[in-house]
């Protein structure tokens, strides 16, 4: 159970790494004043990033739920568990690939859905990927050491889980970076 908490903590910490820099940046900016009853319009990129983030997050959480529900030992013992979890994660990557292909098409077209601010936000979006992955790795390291210290052994399936969690955190951090970018400028 303690390990599950560490996995959740990894995701929470990885996204928490965004929160304080964003709050800090927002404090330095003048507040946006809009007419009463009017909200900030959403750009095409923002809408796409939100939809992709939700889809990727749900698929990742579903994969995590499969592993948590079945137990890490089931990774090798039950093919269905491994294939279901991997399938869900691959589906998440396909959703992200579709998002990237749409963005690349937009970027290649001049005067299309993206303007210069959208492009600047896209360029800055990957900045959080590295820190988010480092936090995830740190959470895994501490979690695994704390829970397996007595035996000095960990199940080999954890190598897969560490890899996949880093991949998914990286993808989620990129998408979150786009959404955060709109709040920072």
């Amino acid at each position: 159970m303690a390990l599950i908490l560490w996995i959740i903590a990894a995701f929470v910490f990885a996204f928490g790494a965004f929160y304080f820099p964003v709050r800090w940046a927002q404090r330095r900016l003048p507040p946006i004043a809009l007419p009463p009853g009017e909200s900030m319009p959403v750009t095409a990129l923002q809408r796409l990033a939100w939809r992709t983030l939700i889809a990727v997050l749900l698929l990742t959480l579903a994969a995590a739920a499969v592993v948590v529900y079945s137990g890490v030992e089931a990774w090798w013992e039950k093919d269905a568990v491994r294939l279901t979890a991997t399938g869900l994660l691959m589906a998440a990557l396909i959703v992200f690939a579709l998002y990237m292909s749409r963005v690349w098409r937009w970027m290649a077209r001049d005067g299309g859905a993206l303007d210069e601010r959208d492009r600047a936000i896209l360029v800055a979006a990957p900045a959080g990927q590295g820190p988010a992955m480092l936090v995830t790795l740190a959470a895994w390291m501490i979690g695994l050491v704390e829970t397996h210290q007595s035996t000095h052994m960990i199940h080999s399936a954890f190598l897969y889980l560490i890899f996949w969690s880093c991949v998914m955190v990286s993808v989620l951090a990129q998408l979150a970076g786009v959404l955060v970018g709109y709040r920072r400028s």
Partner: protein
Amino acid sequence: MPKATIRNSIRRLRFEHGEMTQQELADRAGCTRQTIIVLEQERYVPSLLLAFKIAKAFGTTVDAIFTLQEA
């Protein structure tokens, strides 16, 4: 080095141009309405290209819209 900010008069110019809407200006300048909003609120500094496009939309010069304010 002292920090400088770019001020702009986009909001005033919109109203001087027959209450041009933000969307209309965005369409003319080739950007999103959100960009016009953050520009008006001086939360975003445009590129030279966008600055020239906005100036063209208003039929004026860049320095008539954007001014440098030394801290």
